[in-house]
């Protein structure tokens, strides 16, 4: 079963690589991944859909939380959350089918974002299964190209991330000396 992982991360170089590294190091293939800035431009929100062995799920989350750049990581697979995906579809629409395509698009709540003599570009959002159906239906009208955004999800339980406070520089020096009894210098 696919797992949906939601992460709040520092918007820093390498953060994405570290997070995906936890998955790729185990040979997992990522089904979808979305990442964008949050309201705070220093942070990003990430949603990853991946097929993780159920026995390793909590370990994967813990190993992500361990990363310096990760402020929060949670498994939304079985918790209260909403998830949506967007698809852009370009469909060939000869004159005799244009009305039918538009009617069908309306059923799925899709919007026309471009129209030309060749056809339409349509935009639809929904849960991934609904988008699968939408794409299938549109394919029945003719040649089609589709790009999906990947899933974005948000938890319905407002959990605040636990953040660490600043520490003075060089604080490790005293701590370590205290531990070993080896004087510095």
């Amino acid at each position, binding site marked *: 079963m696919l797992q949906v992982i939601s992460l709040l991360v520092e918007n820093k170089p390498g953060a994405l690589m570290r997070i995906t590294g936890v998955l790729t190091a185990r040979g997992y293939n990522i089904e979808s991944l979305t990442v964008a800035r949050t309201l705070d431009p220093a942070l990003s929100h990430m949603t990853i859909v991946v097929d993780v062995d159920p026995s390793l799920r909590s370990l994967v989350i813990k190993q992500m939380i361990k990363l310096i750049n990760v402020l929060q990581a949670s498994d939304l697979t079985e918790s209260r959350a909403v998830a949506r995906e967007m698809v852009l579809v370009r469909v060939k629409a000869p004159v005799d089918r244009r009305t039918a395509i538009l009617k069908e698009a309306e059923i799925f709540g899709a919007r026309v974002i471009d129209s030309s003599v060749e056809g339409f570009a349509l935009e639809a959002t929904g849960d991934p299964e609904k988008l699968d159906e939408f794409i299938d239906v549109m394919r029945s009208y003719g040649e089609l190209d589709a790009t999906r955004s990947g899933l974005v999800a948000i938890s319905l339980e407002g959990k605040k991330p636990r953040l660490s406070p*600043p520490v003075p520089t060089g604080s490790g020096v005293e701590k370590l000396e205290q531990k070993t009894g080896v004087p510095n210098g």
Partner: protein
Amino acid sequence: MMSTSSLVSGARMLLECLVREGAECIFGYPGGVTLPLYDAMYDHPMRHVLVRHEENACFAAQGYAIATGRVGVCCATSGPGATNLVTGLVNGLMDSTPIVAITGQVASKLIGSDAFQEADTFGITRSCTKHNYLVKNLADLPQIIHEAFYIAGSGRPGPVLVDIAKDVFSGQSRYAPVSAIHLPGYKVPSDGHTGQIRRAAQMIWEARRPIVYAGGGIISAGASAELRRLVEFVDIPAVCTLMGLGGLPSEHPNFISMPGMHGSYAANMGLTQTDLIIALGVRFDDRVTGRLSAFAPHAKVIHVDIDPSEIGKNRIPELPIVGDVRRVLEKLNQILAETAPAISTQNAAARRSWWHQIREWQEQYPLKPVISEAEIKPQHVVSEIDRLSGGKAIVTSDVGQHQMWSAQFIRFNEPRLWINSGGLGSMGFGLPAAIGAQFARPDKLVFAVVGDGGFQMSIPELATLVNYGLPVKVVILNNGYLGMVRQWQELFYNNRTCAVELEGFPDVQKLAAAYGFTGRTVEKPHELAPALQEAVDDPGPYLLNVRVSPCENVFPMVPAGSGISEMVVGPPQPVLVPK
């Protein structure tokens, strides 16, 4: 103190940050893009130790770090310099050793252009480090250096790499010392949950056959004294893992040696039959647990670790406690002391018979060195080293048979004396680690116990020993084989030994003489003790090549995939036990 108003180079700023972090020396190797850094070192008091290969700079920094508990620093240039650090970084990651690795990178405007000696060090070392940085702006440098030290040394320690573009080293700016670092996503657990610790105390009193399973976390956390208080107060038998040796003095009566693949019979049987494992700073490594499903089948587990991702990774504990093991043990000992009068007599009879059983196992299959009058047994060599050390010397090793014999027979009565490549098992670790350790502890007798295989991977560092006059005693257990590989080929591959014979070993006396110090080969048992004494008495480095019996194997042994109670306790042929 540097003036804060004048312009200084990034290289100089880096050195100032290292000084502020208490670094004493850098183990390194220079190159093209680190030229500005070495130029700044020219008239800076920071000590630089020139090794002969970057991998050994990283190993030496680890020897230094393990011997002191402080962050070790190593340095390499871009490209091949940086890629040569990789094995060392993974080694540090596996053994939770605090190091900061500084690498040079090509100038920031050239990054990504396949410039001369360019490699994607930041990308390559991502999975080899606890954290890593690429510095392209001078303004970020001081902050990042302090963050690197903080991350390396705190929590579960580990290596942090800082890749610095050449123009950052050479750029000039005003230096304003950084007073604080803020890593909101980096959590360092400290005190454990008091309620959980109370429950732990309760479980300890209720247990009939408890055992302490202590690891490298005891050493990193400086928790030896608290560990000792615990085992003495409740009178529990304790095993220390390969990484935890010295966490409890080897001579302590409650110490029943190392568990695992080449652990003692008593340690492995104890872990198999216990009803409560008190796991302290350990990770239930496969070399300790053997087949997980057969590991400690009757036991409840209390697992204390500073890294939450270790808890439940291999064995799901009944009672997890996330925290610094020293602080957790302080509180646990306090609670045990408070609750003792009421319940310490509970299970007293069961505890007595548990100890009786443990002592029986120890007597039944003691860890005793094999000694022969006809040839030098490798176990004989490490026992002689043990005699000279008296539990006080620093001993480093590579990986393999010599490492296991050292762990079995050399006593470590303090933490930070035993320095080996545990998790990664890197050959060639012992000699450079000894260099780092000897720099850290000039007052200590340092033995590098190595095999003839690993030694040949670190031979260039003999020059470093001479260069700095380091009196490291290099003892080669020379059986002419890659012994551990041969042991597995013998036992599990139907004796089809392949590519394990090491022919062409150099004449050690000539080799050492070529480097300008003393070396000697011994072959007869009666020569061994005097030769080791001569090595110790020599004020300088000493290379002692001991021709040991070629086909000796390490026992007890738990075959891979077996439960740890399924031990092969000895070789099939009869052995001569010393009087």
